[in-house]
């Protein structure tokens, strides 16, 4: 361990460790002040936010510095904790710091008295969660990676179980923990393979190993399985729509925004960095899984009626898109096309950081709405724009960015992704050449559907008339909550308007992973974002926004000047039907109905139609996840069947037990002879 010299010349890694320890201290302080909710809300969480900003600053400066290594005295005797801060971890630390700063400030204003677990305990779990996330990104050997990886799952499990009075939340917590642990076991076995019989679990040693294609593929599939379970890739996604809505909103924001990215970081670290062998079908596998997850996620998010489940499914969609981008980059890297691999990887990284910002913003807005109205179902909300402008407008920016509309970060990520998918003329096998444009078509469709979902989300909650009388007393967000949301909004806008600077930040990461980068072409094109060549494609968000605003302002002024600006408030046109009520607006189910009709085979619908003889006719449609019935229910019944079989072993009769002992003796004697 290095001596504690003057803080001026500390390594970036030391500063990150300072932030991590600070978070843990704040957590412990939370435990001390268990019930004093005011202290926790106004002192501890903002302190956490301050350290997040510090982490962001350190990450920014570390992005361009060379990799730093440190060894902590903790851990197994022969395997102390190895930590390493390279450009990939710096990028993710930047993401963590940025998002957690906003979410911590929001969380400061989020707590009310006497709700579920004491705020002090939540503060501990929250900051332990943050600390473990930051450490996962620094881990440089299998043991410390697994320890902090499962501590992350462990602490977020308690966050999900914050108000465990409700049975559904307990069920969600259980499912979440189970899938997280199964995934962790998968990762453990993958690391077991990666160290290839050397017994040395450090990543440096793993990088030096050259696995045979077979064992390399087994390790990669285990990694995709393990990290996919945490990221919510298709077959293992069932926990995400249960767990994220169950957690209090600021934490589901952090889980959706940051934790899913850490799972994808895992795939990046193992797939690109640790495994030196590159095989082309790995990319195709990742792309296929990614796109299937994305399509599944977006289709399901359109038909949800609970706002947090809608966002959870939308997170699944975005994770799928990022995975597809990574898969394409791996495909290019396998064929040695560095430039295109870098383009695809930059698209994936850009999508990660923009999704982190706008998804946390949307979850924070649901938190504010939930606290103001106490209502989570979309069916009972509406018209909150008038009562909660400070929440509505930032959410509008989040919605536009999530829908991938031009001036914001979401569009730049989608733009880069489409560019990388489009220019694939050089792939040797014709089948792949054919496959990639089809995937580009799917990405376009998925992005468009994302827009559909977001219009439904914003329209049903904030616009129109309040569908329930008590919505009128909805109070706007507090000072802390506004501050947190504004921070996240600036993040989204900055990502949208200054892509060149962001891509310059991602340059070291792509250089590290695929030894190629976009920086040189992007750097010298000033305002224009030119990934490959000026003639190929270019996009200048600032000029684009300027154009729209200029024409907006010009028309506004000209119309006021040439004509007039008189306006009068009148009741809306009711087409001769006087009893227009708020309930006549489109409900959440209604808005999702066309998608439900088009993508019929995707869903497992349970309809209860009213009959002629009903005293109180009611219509209910429940849309369930088909995978739950195709994969999980048979799996559970299989385990039950086998355990019933095994149960027969313990019948209670002593003679039978003696028989077991006798037969084992005879059998083993025969075997040994």
């Amino acid at each position, binding site marked *: 361990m290095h001596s504690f010299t003057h803080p001026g010349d500390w390594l970036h890694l030391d500063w990150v460790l300072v932030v991590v320890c600070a978070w843990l201290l704040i957590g412990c302080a939370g435990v001390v002040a268990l019930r004093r909710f005011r202290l926790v809300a106004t002192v501890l969480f903002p302190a956490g936010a301050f350290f997040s900003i510090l982490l962001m600053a350190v990450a920014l400066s570390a992005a361009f510095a060379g990799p730093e290594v440190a060894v902590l005295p903790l851990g197994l005797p022969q395997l102390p904790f190895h930590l390493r801060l390279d450009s990939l971890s710096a990028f993710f630390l930047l993401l963590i710091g940025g998002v957690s700063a906003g979410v911590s400030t929001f969380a400061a204003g989020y707590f009310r008295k006497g709700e579920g677990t004491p705020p002090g305990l939540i503060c501990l779990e929250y900051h332990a969660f943050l600390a473990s996330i930051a450490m996962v990104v620094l881990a440089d050997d299998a043991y410390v990676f697994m320890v902090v990886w499962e501590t992350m799952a462990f602490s977020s499990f308690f966050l999900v179980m914050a108000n465990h009075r409700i049975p559904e939340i307990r069920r969600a917590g259980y499912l979440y923990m189970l899938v997280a642990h199964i995934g962790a076991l998968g990762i453990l076995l993958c690391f077991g393979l990666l160290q290839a019989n050397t017994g040395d679990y450090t990543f440096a040693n793993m990088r030096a190993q050259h696995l045979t294609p077979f064992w390399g593929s087994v390790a990669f599939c285990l990694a995709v399985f393990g990290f996919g379970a945490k990221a919510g890739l298709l077959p293992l996604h069932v926990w995400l729509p249960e767990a994220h809505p169950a957690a209090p909103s600021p934490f589901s924001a952090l889980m959706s925004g940051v934790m899913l990215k850490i799972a994808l970081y895992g795939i990046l670290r193992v797939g690109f960095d640790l495994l030196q062998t590159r095989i082309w079908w790995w990319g195709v596998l990742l792309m296929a899984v990614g796109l299937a997850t994305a399509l599944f996620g977006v289709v399901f998010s359109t038909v949800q009626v609970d706002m947090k489940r809608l966002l959870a499914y939308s997170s699944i969609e975005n994770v799928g898109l990022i995975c597809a981008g990574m898969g394409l980059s791996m495909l290019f890297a396998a064929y040695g096309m560095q430039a295109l691999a870098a383009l695809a990887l930059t698209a994936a990284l850009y999508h990660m950081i923009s999704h982190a910002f706008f998804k946390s913003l949307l979850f924070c807005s649901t938190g504010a709405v939930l606290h103001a109205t106490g209502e989570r179902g979309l069916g009972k909300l509406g018209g909150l724009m008038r009562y909660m402008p400070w929440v509505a407008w930032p959410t509008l920016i989040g919605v536009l960015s999530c829908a991938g509309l031009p001036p914001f970060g979401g569009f730049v990520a989608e733009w880069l992704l489409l560019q990388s998918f489009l220019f694939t003329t050089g792939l040797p096998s014709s089948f792949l050449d054919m496959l990639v444009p089809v995937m580009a078509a799917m990405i376009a469709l998925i992005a468009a559907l994302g827009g559909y979902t977001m219009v439904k989300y914003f329209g049903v909650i904030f616009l129109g008339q309040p569908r329930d009388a008590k919505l009128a007393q909805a109070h706007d967000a507090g000072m802390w909550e506004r501050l947190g949301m504004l921070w996240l909004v600036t993040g989204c806008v900055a990502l949208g308007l200054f892509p060149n600077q962001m891509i310059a930040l991602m340059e070291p990461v792509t250089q590290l992973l695929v030894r190629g980068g976009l920086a040189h072409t992007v750097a010298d094109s000033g305002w224009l974002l030119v990934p490959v060549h000026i003639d190929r494609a270019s996009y200048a968000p600032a000029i684009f926004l300027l154009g729209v605003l200029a024409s907006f302002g010009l028309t506004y002024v000209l119309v006021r000047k040439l004509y007039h600006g008189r306006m009068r408030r009148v009741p809306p046109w009711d087409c001769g039907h006087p009893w227009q009520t708020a309930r006549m607006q489109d409900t959440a189910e209604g808005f999702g109905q066309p998608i439900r009709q088009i993508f019929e085979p995707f869903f497992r619908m349970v309809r209860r139609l009213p009959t002629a003889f009903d005293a109180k006719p009611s219509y209910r449609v429940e849309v369930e996840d088909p995978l739950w019935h195709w994969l999980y229910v048979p799996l559970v019944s299989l385990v039950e069947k086998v355990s*019933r079989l095994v*149960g*027969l*072993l*313990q*019948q*209670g*009769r*002593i*003679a039978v037990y*003696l*028989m077991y002992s*006798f037969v084992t003796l*005879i059998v083993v*004697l025969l075997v040994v*002879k």
Partner: protein
Amino acid sequence: MSTLAPQLINLFATLILLLSFSMISQRRIVSLINLFAIQGAALVAASFLLGYVTHQPDLYVSGVLTLVLKVIFIPWMLHRLIRKLNVRWDVETLFNVPTTMLVGIGLVIFSFSLALPISRLSQSIAGGSLGIALACVLLSFMMMITRSKAVPQVIGFLSMENGLIFAATTVTNGMPMIVEFGIALDVLVGVLILGVFMFQIREKFDSLDIHNLETLKDDSA
């Protein structure tokens, strides 16, 4: 005398094997206890003979120990127990007797084939008896499985101990003294505890049938 001893040892061994067989097929408890006592006596005789032939005094001590325990005290205690619990009815087994006999023979063949390569190497004069001892152990093991009453199960357990002690004395001229004492002590205390249990089972289930000791199980739905 030197040539006579191995034959005598083998005689005692076959006697013990015969007794084990008869105990398996025996239906009445009182005669079961007596057979056990006779088996104990044969064991004592074998150890005295071996002690005399190999001039090892501790074999005499182990013989006396077995005599006191296995021939006098335990049978007396079991008889008293049966009189007090007035358990006099016959002992039905789970499988009918012929099948148990067939299985018994199979076991004997198996243990002989198992012990054959070893007994050739043994220097002690009664090398061959290892197979017989193993057969006694397996037979009494099977007896415990097939009996559905508490007392026969205990007797099966004790005759297994007899087989083991016999193996120890014949194959390696007895175990070190400290171990002999330990084994004897354990067996004694074990029997005492089993006696206490039988009282409690009798008092709790007012029958010594093992069938009502089957409540703890996991195969229910």
